[in-house]
């Protein structure tokens, strides 16, 4: 049975090594001790909260440290049981080791702490093969399971398939993939293989404001008529990570939502790359949707985390609008996605069109 000092260490966020087979028992005893200490008014009031299982896949110590930082912030609004998997298949030792810690946040009036537990499992060499089996008994029952896969899951298909079988959602970031465009077809196949699981690309999440600004052009009925008259969609993007794929997905999103055949999408969507010197850019620099009589433009404001939308059209509907981008760090993007409950069907449609367009080009 742990003592108060161990409870203090645990709730202070310090990792404590624990036998993999004893993780659940150790956590249970720590929370039981925390519950008993509530009877002493001089002790801090601690509540454990958990709304979902959050499996985070890492392959380096850097990713693992980053994951812990993200989880620490994320749990203030999204309490969960975080299970951080650190897989190093190239290290020969073949170990499977674990540690536990907690992330605590003051809640409400600041008198009570709400805590979430983090379990870290490190696997190396042949031990990586045991990760899937180690995770499954640690999942809290009756709660959704979300996987945040740092890196390219297509390279770890065995483990990915095992985990995705119990997941409700997989979050990944194709910006971090090497040559993601060449892997889009494989990604679509994985999505199709797992219809029960929702696939979320943080690269797509970054397009949120761009999509919203474009959509708002057509809220007014007299502007909406222009949707049927679009001649070109010109998208200028930078060379940063994931920028060209984001630009492609953006154009294919419009094509998919307007039911353009692939050939029409190919003809109307124009992508061009430009040097991007803007430190605050997420990759897309400007968009122009042109019809016979109107141009709907969005441009990233240089040096600012904002974009401005303007309409050039007789009897224009709406004034120029400027909107701020949502922060594009992993914590903010994940937080946005964890607020959503619905499947990203729009993303999946855009992705399917992107695959078709790329195939059309290669033919």
């Amino acid at each position, binding site marked *: 049975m742990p003592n108060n000092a161990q409870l203090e260490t645990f709730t202070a966020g310090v990792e404590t090594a624990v036998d993999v087979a004893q993780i659940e028992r150790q956590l249970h005893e720590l929370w039981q001790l925390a519950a008993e200490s509530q009877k002493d008014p001089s002790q801090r009031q601690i*509540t454990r*909260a958990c*709304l979902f299982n959050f499996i985070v896949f890492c392959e380096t110590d850097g990713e693992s440290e980053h994951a812990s930082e993200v989880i620490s912030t994320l749990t*203030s*609004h*999204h*309490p969960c049981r975080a299970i951080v998997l650190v897989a190093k298949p190239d290290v020969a030792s073949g170990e499977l080791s674990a540690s536990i810690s907690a992330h605590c*946040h003051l*809640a*409400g*009036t600041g008198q*009570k702490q*709400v805590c979430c537990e983090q379990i870290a499992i490190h696997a190396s060499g042949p031990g990586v093969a045991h990760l899937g089996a180690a995770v499954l008994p640690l999942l809290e029952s009756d709660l959704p399971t979300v996987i945040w896969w740092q890196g390219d899951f297509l390279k770890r298909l065995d483990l990915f398939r095992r985990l995705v079988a119990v997941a409700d959602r997989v979050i990944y970031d194709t910006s971090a993939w090497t040559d993601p465009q060449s892997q889009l077809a494989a990604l679509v196949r994985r999505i199709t293989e797992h219809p029960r699981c929702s696939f979320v690309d943080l690269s797509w999440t970054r397009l*949120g404001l761009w*999509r*919203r600004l*474009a*959509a*708002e052009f*057509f*809220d007014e*009925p*007299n502007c*909406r*008529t*222009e*949707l*049927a*008259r679009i001649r070109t969609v010109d998208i200028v993007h930078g060379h940063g990570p994931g920028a060209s794929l984001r630009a492609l997905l953006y154009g294919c999103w*419009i094509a998919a*939502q*307007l039911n353009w055949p692939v050939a029409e999408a190919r003809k109307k969507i124009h992508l061009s790359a430009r040097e991007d010197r803007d430190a605050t850019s997420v990759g897309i620099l400007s968009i122009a949707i042109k019809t016979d009589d109107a141009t709907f433009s969005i441009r990233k404001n240089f040096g600012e985390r904002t974009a401005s939308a303007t309409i050039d059209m007789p009897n224009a509907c*709406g*004034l120029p*609008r400027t*909107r*701020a981008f949502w922060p594009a760090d992993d914590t903010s993007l994940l937080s946005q996605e964890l607020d959503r409950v*619905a499947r*990203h*069907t*729009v*993303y999946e449609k855009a992705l399917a069109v992107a695959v078709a367009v790329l195939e059309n080009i290669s033919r």
Partner: protein
Amino acid sequence: MQTALPTNPLQEGLSARRAPEPCALVIFGATGDLTHRKLVPALYNLAHEGQLPQSFAIVGFARRPKTHDQFRAELRDAVAQFSRFQPTNPAVWDALAQATFYHQSEFADALGYQKLKTFLQELDVKRGTAGNRLFYLATAPTEFIGIIEHLGANGLVHSEQAPIASRRIIVEKPFGRSLPTAEELNHALAGAFDERQIFRIDHYLGKETVQNIVALRFANEIFEPLWNQKYVDHIQITVAESLGVEGRGGYYDGSGALRDMVQNHMMQLLSLVAMEPPTTLDGAAIHDEKVKVLRAIRPMTAEQVQQFTLRGQYARGSMAGQAVPAYREEKNVAPGSRTETFVALKLFIENWRWFGVPFYLRHGKRLPKGVAEIAIQFKAPPAVLFAAESPAPLQPNVLVLRIQPDEGIAIRMNAKVPGNELNLQPVKMDFRYGGSFGARSPEAYERLLHDAILGDSTLFTRRDEVERSWQIADAIIEGWNAGPAPSPYESGTWGPPEADRFIERDGREWRRP
């Protein structure tokens, strides 16, 4: 000629939050406490979250001479003090300040309204507010009818250019002080506005936990089958305040606890907790169900008022270690005042679902702590099984919806104490919003202002709800007028001793929240 698609396909998958239309918000009583403490901080919070229309303007309408910049500076201070986003984001504030204007006029001066109309038309051009107006009555209630009539008479409500729904009015509480005065106010509103344009505010309905009553009841299959006279013993709705009248003695002495809290907020809580499932979640369907509950509340004769209600008035006492004065010693309160600061009611809803189930409503000032909750107490389980082993009677299950503070839901149930003996003990399962979702609930006024800008009246009260609530309250007040003065209670206690007897004679007891 191309025709527009019925919906915008590019909006699919984006947040379901509707984009608010361009709008000019005119606040009458713009230099008052409500504007500074609640309205402008709420507007800033909405701007901070990008939920205000792109083309938006705030026009403060008040008597005191002031420049636009003076008004903006005062509001900036208010935002710095009362916004939930701290510190103030200069970019967000600057954008809001540029959209903020001041219009000086007496409320009874027709010329002031004509100038307002011209000014708003100028804003339509400069700020793109498109002829849409939202008027907010944040003045003393005595000014309401005059302002409404001036708005109508000076062409501010109807516009040849804009459709009828783009002119809306929010009316702050109190909405009348009796059925006749509420009817008079409704009559004045109906003379200038269509019912769809009228938003009667009850800020309790903007609270997340109150909105969650509908979600809890109708999104969870386990509760609704038990939510009736077969399983529920009684329901207690408590809104306790630790504060006294806090400088509002003049207003409060002419109003009292029943008018100030029960007729509006507590009746809304009661109707939400007791209503039948609405056919949809739109405003009209929910209003229809709520008003059915209010209509089903058993009317009271003068004699029944003495039996089913109780009122009290706080005397001197002690709060948080400090001596506090009696109500009658408060500023602007008549020394011989008979105004109640505590009220307890027992109401019956005469429909199939609630027949015979008492609803105990309790509200008071200077009670030990500030708390608002709805407690559904279920019938006690049959005692036969555990009677021999556990001599104390089994505690009935209680489901508590905590509205403030520590918003959440708790269930009390019986569990076996670990050990060789079969001892039972009540335990509490406690769900807290703050713990599960983090502290990100918007303020009630944010939600309500946003909904009014969107034209969604779901969280506002409808004419028939207000008038029926007043009908119930008036009957009680009439009964009280013929009865004894309110019973005194020591500040810092849970009301007069009679309050305990009031419920104990039914074999029940008040919860200690």
